[in-house]
């Protein structure tokens, strides 16, 4: 779970960069979904 949290945090930071660049908001659930898929990947 701690590993997942670390992945989730990193994914959140990267998504934040995309949000700033594209001026579009990603919901918390979307960030969680990307994190889950990344962890499985």
């Amino acid at each position, binding site marked *: 779970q*701690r*590993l997942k*949290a*670390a992945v*989730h*945090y990193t994914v*959140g930071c990267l998504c934040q960069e995309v949000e700033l660049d594209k001026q579009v908001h990603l919901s*918390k*659930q979307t*960030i*969680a*979904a990307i*994190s*889950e*898929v990344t962890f*499985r990947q």
Partner: protein
Amino acid sequence: KDGLLSEEEFNLWNRLYRLGDSDTVKGVALPRSHFLSLQEDRVAQEPTTGIHQLSLSEWSVWQDHPLPTHQVEHSDRCHHFISIMQMIEGMRHEEDECSYELKIKPFLQMEDVY
């Protein structure tokens, strides 16, 4: 140093990203796939309440054309998948006759299969 979150990072994660009891969606999961033909005795996992199960098939009708990419182009495997979805979409409303069979049957030579 151990690769895990520092206290400050943990607090940020908890505040900004962590899904919890106060959220409608309490978590997200990508269901595991398995080969039905090989694992017949596998017990289907019941989805947990509040956990959104990501679906790869919910939007299957959208997969009949390549969607936009950013820095990574579509792979050959992806193009193959898209072309199959296109074919399926084309056949969706067929009744009785199968257009694919009609198209390909003239080329069947029995000596090729026996």
